[in-house]
């Protein structure tokens, strides 16, 4: 299967996205922002539809739309205990508004169903060299920002009030992290599609957290699992002809279920 350029690109793209999704996803799950991950990738879909309508590459539209939504979600005023009281409402409404825009963009671009299918379910086998370069750029930027932000982000995520009391600029940290998450979601959507992009972010990270691992081991496992899911998905798709996102979604749920079983078994 590696004799084809498109397969080699797919494997490299999946690897880049997996490292990003495993890391960002771990923080998203730690901060209980699974809904944000779900919403951001769908918002990216609307951006991609808009970009196609205007004649730009879909990834650029995904990045711009996700980034704008990330800023809006991250900038929400925090409640007394350091967590935005209306977070889910804000995310839900930003999602609703952008999906509405997405429907309009699809209508205007006059390429409705085929375009929607590609954007929603992804086209990992269609990644060209240019897209691969863009994905690498997004990954380096996101991981660099996360490395810079990491310790304050971890403190603000585990003990928001204590962190604020010690002088951590929790809101700034939250905004920058949501921007990183938005970029990561856009990158994931390129591989797994808008509908299942969050499965790469959520599944591996939730599994790592379920196992009760500390931050370093948890992020390492999350990245490893994301890599296993995306590469495994590509191989199984090659063999079975079932779409890659199908295997990724199924694998994510299965890994979490296994972690849950293992945890129950240990507590017996």
């Amino acid at each position, binding site marked *: 299967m590696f004799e084809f350029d498109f397969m080699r690109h797919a494997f490299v793209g999946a690897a880049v996205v997996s490292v990003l999704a495993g890391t960002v996803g771990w923080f998203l799950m*730690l*901060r*209980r922002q699974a809904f944000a991950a779900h919403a951001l990738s769908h918002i990216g879909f609307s951006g991609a539809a808009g970009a196609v309508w205007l004649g730009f590459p879909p990834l650029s539209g995904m990045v711009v739309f996700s980034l704008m939504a990330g800023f809006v979600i991250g900038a929400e005023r925090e409640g007394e*205990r350091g967590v935005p009281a209306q977070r889910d409402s804000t995310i839900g409404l930003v999602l609703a508004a952008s999906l509405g825009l997405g429907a309009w963009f699809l209508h205007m671009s006059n390429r409705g169903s085929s375009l929607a299918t590609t954007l929603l379910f992804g086209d990992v086998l269609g990644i060209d060299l240019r897209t691969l370069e863009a994905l690498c750029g997004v990954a380096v930027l996101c991981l660099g920002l996360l*490395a*810079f*932000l*990491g*310790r*304050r982000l*971890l*403190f*603000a*995520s*585990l*003990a*928001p*009030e*204590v*962190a*604020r*009391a*010690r*002088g*951590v600029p929790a809101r700034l940290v939250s905004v920058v992290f949501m921007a990183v998450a938005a970029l990561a979601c856009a990158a994931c959507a390129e591989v797994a599609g808008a509908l299942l992009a969050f499965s790469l972010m959520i599944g591996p990270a939730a599994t790592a*957290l*379920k*196992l*009760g*691992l*500390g*931050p370093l081991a*948890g992020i390492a496992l999350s990245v490893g699992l994301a890599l296993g899911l995306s590469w495994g998905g590509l191989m199984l798709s090659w063999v079975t002809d079932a779409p890659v996102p199908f295997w990724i979604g199924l694998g994510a749920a299965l890994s979490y279920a296994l972690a849950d079983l293992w945890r129950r078994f240990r507590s017996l």
Partner: protein
Amino acid sequence: MVDTKRVCCQPERGLVLRDVTLTAGSTCVLRDASLTVPLSGMTLLSGRNGAGKSTLLRAMLGLVPLQGGEILTHGLPPAQARQHIGYMPQSVTDAALLLPAVSHVRAAVDGLRWGLPLRLRPRREEADRLLALTGASAFAHRPLGLLSGGERQRVGLAQALAGNPDLLLLDEPLAALDHAGQEQTVRLLGDLTARLGIGIVLTSHETEALAGVVTRVMQLADGGLHVRV
């Protein structure tokens, strides 16, 4: 350990309120209140439910704005004073309950730094020291969510002690503990003030459990703060 050099160089020890007006929702916590009170030993901040005890602690840290006047802690305004203050909120933490307790303390130890750590060992050793100090070593590697209320309080105290503060602000540290748990926590707090020389300000309704241990009581009532020793 307490940074004695830092302590010696500070001009004014204790809590100073100058014409402070502070509100919490529709409740007037303080109205033009002025006061100077030392914060050595253990200080109980008391008052009826909703009087604004937690709000006053949070104002000392600059987490809620004053409507007028200024608060100085050890001679410093909140933004600078909080570098020398450890804080434990009422609900210690309900985030990431599956993570081991020690991870929560490690995060607090170097949570003020940007970038990746060059060496992990100093952070681990400091977290272990803080957990030992609060008697939490035995359950440090268990998930936070599996700990009892008293055990979580000890982890929260270890977090609050990160950064070697001169002063601890503890919001209802005895709430939701049974009698034995309250006794253990009071003993631990007394031990911390005696061994480390740290001042403690705590809010609590459990005045009986604290009898004989507190150095002074600050009563929050009718928009004023009244001190008795």
